[in-house]
């Protein structure tokens, strides 16, 4: 574990240690200098290397595998096939539902998507494994594949009744509305595209398994490994000190993880398996492709009477993924009549998964474009129509918002952007060969809550250690937990060391859905508070303490020194007190669970998502909110779209560290620009195979594509959302960027592009 140099980080404003201070990332220097060791960079004695062989068909059966050439190739230790890999038990899913099959086969005989793992070669070196993997011959009996949602064989799919949301009589109200718009909006298959690929090192010692793997959820993945290999949960140790980007993709133990762990067991040697870049596009799911139709009926004054929404997302032949497409549609605007329904369609793909703001992101693309179309139809300003239909309370849950600073976001964003100077007609603003367009859209993300625990240790020298099995994938956990402990204990932030990413530390649930900061600041706050109480208790009551004769009721700790509130009597550093009372450390564990929670419930809480707390629990509906204002320039000849300005005003409640929050918001906005203009998994329809699965051909925005981005925080502390008043940060800002850009493109050109990404051929 790298110990981060806090002094380096603590450089840019007063009171950095306070929650809310702009402390720079404490892990930054380690990452920039290369000192940070990522999970599968560990150097282990006797390490072997595994390389996967992927199916070259999208559907059918493996009829034979000839591994002889590979087996006799230099350095090869084993070739694993569906016929030779050890048997694994089925594992329960992330909700804790028991497995549908008693056994689990990470190398398959029945192929359901192109690239699915059918074999693996383990060799002494990586190069030997790569060379031998190319020698494995696989024969198939191919059957027709359903390549994507537009495949004629795909059909209408399976209705997901749990997604239905209805009130009033939406269809009738739509039919009667004096002004109506109805359009279809599509988003393609997109990928998380983290810089760090997926992969792991697995090592067995007897029946104890250690896994070094980038992970957004140590406890959940450890549970999966334990179930696969029928060993106690405690026997699995998952280590994930840093994560080079996850964006939703690194929360589950996957087929390749199982292959590596099984290979390590079978060979009794540690095995390293890292997916190559193309495999990162086929071994786990990106965002499912989606189709939505949004129909809005309104009065002539712009008041919405009805919204009718239908959505479809793709899922896998042998796995279910529901991308909740009505999530934003159902809460963004007040409407007396509403209907949203959703189907999923099985296609031959790896099971789609979570990518930043799953559900909310494509949902907002539909409704936030549709409302812009309605504004145009009515001759209203796109900002005005949003205010006319402002939802004063959650129209679906029928509860008050805990906090909703969206009106403030519209006002602050519009002011900073200069929205009032917008010329309303499309194609009315230009600069030389460039059409200029201004667009607006709103975004939202629910406040997902859960429970976590943390250990806080005060050591003999007065320094503080925080331990948690939660993780930092760049969002700033190391930093805000150091700030939380420093503030709660009253010590300088450079005296705090945060240790994360080891499943043997105090437990934490999944890092996803922007829940971690709220959960873990709460847990650290509690553990640190208990440690402080213990420290003060010792100082007041221990016979060896110089404070004992003071007869004070309490003491205060400030800047790492302990004294009476009014300053009379002794003034000691924490270290001096610890040595005076002869203690080498104080250790407390704090969690946010009710005291009555049973051990089984605790296990379930950390290893499944079944105990997440609904965002509409109790009297309130809890969401983060944002408003994006975007300027685009569209070349009149080339159809190329460049984003030239972004101003976003965001309500994430109280910010634990504004610098880190801004950086996450900007990351979300940048990802949204990529989604709007560039990203698309392109499938060869004959083979059902992604053909642009690499970073040269799967387009992500470069620095040159990103303008200056201004973010404005309009949040206020939300006591109903978290212990310290924060709401979600990480997922929020991507929501609404793509529609803001699409709306700006319409304003620039008069052309409505409803299929993402907005590439040049759609505009020329």
């Amino acid at each position: 574990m790298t110990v981060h140099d806090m002094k380096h980080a603590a450089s840019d404003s007063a009171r950095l240690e306070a929650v809310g201070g702009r402390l720079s990332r404490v892990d930054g220097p380690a990452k920039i200098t290369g000192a940070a060791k990522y999970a599968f960079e560990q150097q282990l004695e006797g390490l072997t290397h595994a390389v996967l062989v992927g199916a070259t068909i999208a559907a059918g059966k493996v009829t034979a595998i000839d591994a002889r050439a590979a087996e006799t190739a230099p350095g090869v230790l084993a070739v694993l096939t569906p016929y030779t890999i050890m048997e694994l038990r089925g594992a329960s899913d992330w909700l804790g539902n028991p497995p549908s099959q008693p056994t689990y086969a990470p190398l398959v005989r029945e192929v359901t998507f192109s690239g699915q793992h059918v074999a693996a070669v383990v060799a002494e070196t990586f190069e030997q494994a790569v060379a031998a993997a190319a020698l494995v011959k696989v024969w198939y009996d191919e059957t027709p594949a359903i390549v994507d949602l537009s495949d004629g064989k795909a059909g209408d799919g399976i209705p997901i009744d749990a997604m239905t949301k209805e009130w009033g009589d939406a269809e009738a109200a739509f039919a009667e509305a004096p002004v109506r718009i109805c359009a279809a909006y599509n988003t393609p298959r997109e990928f998380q595209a983290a810089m760090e690929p997926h992969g792991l090192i697995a090592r067995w010692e007897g029946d104890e398994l250690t896994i070094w793997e980038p992970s957004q959820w140590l406890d959940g993945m450890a549970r999966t490994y334990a179930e696969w290999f029928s060993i106690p949960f405690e026997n699995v140790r998952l280590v994930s000190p840093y994560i080079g980007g996850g964006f939703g993709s690194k929360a589950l133990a996957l087929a390749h993880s199982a292959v590596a762990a099984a290979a390590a067991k079978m060979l009794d040697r540690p095995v390293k398996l890292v997916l190559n870049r193309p495999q990162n596009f086929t071994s786990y799911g990106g965002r499912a492709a989606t189709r939505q139709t949004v129909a809005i009926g309104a009065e002539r004054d712009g008041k919405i009477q009805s919204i009718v929404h239908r959505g479809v997302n793709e899922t896998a032949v042998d796995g279910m993924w529901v991308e909740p497409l009505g999530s934003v549609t159902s809460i963004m605007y007040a409407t007396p009549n509403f209907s949203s329904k959703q189907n999923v369609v099985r296609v031959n793909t790896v099971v789609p998964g979570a990518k930043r703001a799953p559900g909310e992101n494509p949902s907002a693309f539909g409704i936030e474009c549709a409302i812009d179309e309605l504004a145009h139809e009515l001759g209203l300003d796109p900002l005005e129509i949003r205010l006319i239909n402002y939802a004063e309370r959650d129209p679906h849950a029928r509860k008050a918002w805990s906090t909703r600073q969206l009106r403030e976001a519209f006002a602050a964003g519009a002011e900073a952007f200069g929205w009032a100077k917008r010329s309303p007609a499309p194609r009315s603003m230009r600069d030389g060969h460039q059409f200029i367009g201004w667009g607006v859209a709103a975004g939202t993300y629910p406040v997902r809550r859960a429970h976590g625990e943390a250990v806080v240790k005060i050591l003999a020298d007065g320094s503080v250690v925080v331990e948690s099995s939660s993780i930092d994938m760049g969002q700033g956990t190391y930093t805000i937990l150091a700030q939380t402990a420093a503030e709660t204990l009253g010590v300088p932030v450079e005296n705090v060391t945060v240790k994360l990413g080891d499943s043997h530390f105090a437990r934490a649930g999944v890092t996803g859905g922007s829940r971690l900061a709220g959960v873990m600041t709460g847990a650290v706050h509690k553990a640190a508070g208990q440690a402080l109480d213990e420290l003060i208790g010792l100082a007041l009551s221990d016979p060896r303490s110089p404070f004992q004769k003071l007869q004070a009721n309490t003491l205060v700790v400030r800047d790492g020194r302990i004294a009476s509130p009014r300053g009379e009597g002794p003034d000691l550093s924490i270290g001096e007190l610890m040595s005076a009372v002869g203690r080498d450390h104080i250790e407390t564990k704090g969690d946010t669970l009710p005291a009555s929670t049973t051990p089984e419930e605790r296990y379930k809480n950390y290893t499944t998502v079944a105990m997440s707390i609904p965002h509409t629990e109790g009297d309130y509906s809890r969401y983060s909110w944002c408003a994006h204002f975007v300027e685009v320039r569209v070349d009149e000849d080339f159809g190329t779209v460049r984003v030239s300005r972004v101003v976003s005003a965001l309500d994430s409640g109280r910010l634990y560290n504004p610098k880190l929050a801004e950086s996450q918001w900007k990351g979300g906005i940048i990802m949204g620009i990529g989604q709007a203009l560039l990203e698309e998994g392109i499938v060869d329809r004959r083979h059902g195979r992604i053909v642009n699965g690499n970073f040269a051909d799967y387009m992500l925005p470069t620095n040159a594509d990103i303008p200056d981005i201004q973010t404005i925080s309009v949040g206020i502390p939300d006591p109903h959302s978290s212990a310290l008043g924060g709401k979600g940060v990480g997922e929020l800002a991507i929501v609404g960027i793509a529609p803001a850009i699409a709306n700006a493109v319409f304003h620039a050109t008069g052309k409505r592009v409803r299929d993402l990404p907005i590439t040049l051929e759609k505009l020329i």
Partner: protein
Amino acid sequence: MRDFSYFRADNIEAARNAAALPGAMLLAGGTTLVDLAKCGVAEPATVIDISHIEGLNAIDASADRALIGALAKMSHVADNAEVKSFFPAVSEALWQAASAQLRNMATIGGNLMQRTRCPYFRDPANFPACNKREPGSGCSAIGGVTRGHAVLGVSEACIATYPGDLAVALVAFDAEVDLGERKLKVEDFFLAPGATAEQEHDIRPGEVITAIEIPGSAAARRSTYMKVRDRQSYEFAAASAAVGLELEGDGRTIRDIRVALGGVATKPWRARAVEDALKGKALDEATIREASELAMEGAVDHGANHYKIALAPRVIARAILKLGETA
């Protein structure tokens, strides 16, 4: 591992001798070769490292000509003051190519020899059919994903786009490639696929590119490279044009014009029909736009690349108009 032998050539003779061996491939900056080796496309028996040969990286440019050594780095050539003044299209083609990191590694010789980005060509494990890799095996691209494929110079055997930028500028200004025993026009050095998609260059075993030479001209001095793509940087051209312009003394009649296209053809494509239509004409937007359309004579699309037929003439026209504005 896939074994190969490594040979470090200290001089050009040694490189030529080694390059004559079967299965030998030259290694310059390695940005194409290593990439293709990872994809399983390049499987050299011998890798001949020419990157240490001295005297092959010189850049000697003046108004009369530019002589650029094969081992000169893309970034150095792009940044060279004389190249910028006398051959701006060459500098612009280079700095808009690839990424800063790649340009710092990649050489001019290697740049001419870069291979197509056709995704089927680059994925032998999944797409065995590719005439460029395996003559006679067929073409996986036709009928597949063709958004980046060529519309000019295509054949039934292959529709792969020549992806490079620099060569487009070289073709526009009649540059030559020096192979030691032979010197060829860059335009003739590149071969359209015809029935022999595997032959991309007129280069023989044992030949090594030592330099390129670009004759100076008024058109080269007043030139530009315009590159259009979805992403602002680090992407190959959807369509590009290298254009040079020389006007008569009246400041509006076109005396000489050079037009070459990238991103739309199977080789760097000289658009002579456009040049011929504009020589002697006034520099006028409507005339330019109309003449630019002539570049697409004989264009054939395969579905998703249809947009290139509309796009390429606009790129030509805009490049000419841009030069017209910068009198």
